[in-house]
């Protein structure tokens, strides 16, 4: 079996024609409301179809939002949750979570790393995709050194375990300098932004493969369909 994964979005996948090795890390960052969570959902759907175990850590909203989002796209969420092929982890509720999987204390990066690692340990015999949406929210209270150290050790560990990881960051939450350093730690950077005229803003996306030094500087236009998810405007460049 091929051990390379894709985003699950035609157009975006063409930017990584050979796919991404399991153990690779993807950084998705962009404006609020641009479609980062929708992309995360596509990434999860793709994983479910390929037989992966998909773990989604919800930091900005309750996991029920992603559950509802997937249901909107006619994914039989319950079937996947029952056999633990899809784990929606609550890292949002500060009080007691009603979810089966939760990360209770989000105020210590060390604790978060241990809890995340413990969760992943349960699936060492499976191919795993991990999405943290958004990691930037977890990092708000911490200093630059602490954030960078957390990143280095966490990403190293995820790579070793062969986890295909997608970390979502909201633009403007972390210091730009920190973001620049962090982005170099990931194999693939996905930048999502609004562009075009103010009266009719467009959604744009850029994909860069940091480690290979290749960065697709051409922003590609995309839209979000309530039925099909992210759709790229065919053969149209901005």
């Amino acid at each position, binding site marked *: 079996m091929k051990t390379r994964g894709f985003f699950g979005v*035609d157009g975006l996948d063409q930017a990584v024609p050979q796919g991404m090795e399991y153990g690779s890390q993807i950084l998705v960052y962009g404006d609020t409301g641009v479609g980062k969570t929708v992309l995360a959902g596509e990434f999860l759907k793709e994983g479910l179809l390929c037989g992966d175990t998909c773990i989604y850590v919800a930091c900005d909203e309750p996991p029920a939002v992603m559950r509802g989002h997937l*249901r909107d796209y006619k994914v*039989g969420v319950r*079937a996947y949750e029952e*056999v633990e*092929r899809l784990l929606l982890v609550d890292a949002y509720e500060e009080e007691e979570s009603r979810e089966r999987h939760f990360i209770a204390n989000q105020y210590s990066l060390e604790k978060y790393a241990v809890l995340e690692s413990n969760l992943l340990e349960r699936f060492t015999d499976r191919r795993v995709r991990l999405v943290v949406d958004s990691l930037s929210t977890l990092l708000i209270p911490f200093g630059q050194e602490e954030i960078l150290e957390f990143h280095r050790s966490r990403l190293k560990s995820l790579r070793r375990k062969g986890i295909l990881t997608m970390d979502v960051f909201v633009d403007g939450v972390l210091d730009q300098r920190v973001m620049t350093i962090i982005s170099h730690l990931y194999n693939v950077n996905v930048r999502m932004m609004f562009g075009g005229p103010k009266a009719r803003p467009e959604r744009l996306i850029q994909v860069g493969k940091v480690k290979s030094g290749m960065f697709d500087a051409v922003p590609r236009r995309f839209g979000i369909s309530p039925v099909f998810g992210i759709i790229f405007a065919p053969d149209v460049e901005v």
Partner: protein
Amino acid sequence: MYNAEKFYLKIINSIYLNLSRTASSIPFGGNHFLDEVTRGVGELILKEYEEQFNPESTKPSEICKAYLKTLGRQDFLEDGAFQLEDDGDSVVVTMNPKDQEHCIYKEFCREAQKESLLFYCPRLGVLQSVLKKSLGVEYSTSVDWEPESKICRGRISPVKRRLRTEMARFVDDTLNIAGERAMLFTKDAYLSLLTAVAEYAPFILRKVLFDSGYRSFLGVAREAADSYKTPEKSLRVCFEEMKHCGIGKVELISLDPSAGHAVIRCYQSFEVAAVEDIELYRTPRVTCDHLRGQLSACLTVILGCPIICEEMQCAALDGEYCEFLAYPEEENERK
């Protein structure tokens, strides 16, 4: 019995046995084909002796008795060897072990059972056509032979519903299934369609397959739900239709109708076979979306609430079968 008679019996039994063997491999329901052949032979014999056949009642068992008497008068059979009684709309025909020795079809009957072939008793086929002619109702037959008591028990019952796929026919150079125009979709034609969709609008492919499967099976599921009392029976009929269509051998592993939960497996899925030689998707993945749609439609109609099936295991990835989990489609809370 003269040697020539023995020889004729051998020929008759061999013809029926080979018809059964051939019918097993006929697409679109060998059942119906064999049923029609046996019934048709009965119809021809009936035509021959029609003038001598005068039933005094419209009770199905009395009609059958009157016809057996007609044949008895020709020394064709011993009409007393058959016990007939009504069971609702059906007629039960019993033959004791002693009388079975005189059954001219016993060689075919035993061999067909030994080989687990499709089997329709030619004797019951005659009675089936007599009942159809007398009452204007379609009948079908089944036979149970109890090895312990060695009693042969046949049943002639009105046909509730025939599988749609059994009603495939050529009419004036056109293929019809259940009265509707149909065409055979070869693997090449199916793949061409899939490849074209994947080329021009890859993001719609799975949805198209699921929706087309769902829509195309709603009618079949409705008919099955109306015709049978239990969800299990209705589902099995739907699965039989799927098998006849060449989709694969679908099996119900478990069903909890009140919870809307089911586990279903498919062996030899057509969709798996169709994509095995081409790279339709970038990575190996579950591929049976058309079947997933059909199963979702069947469960939704038969269980009476929206059900969604997910393919948790696909033979395109690993293993010998595809496995589907079904749960009620949950509604999102809207604020």
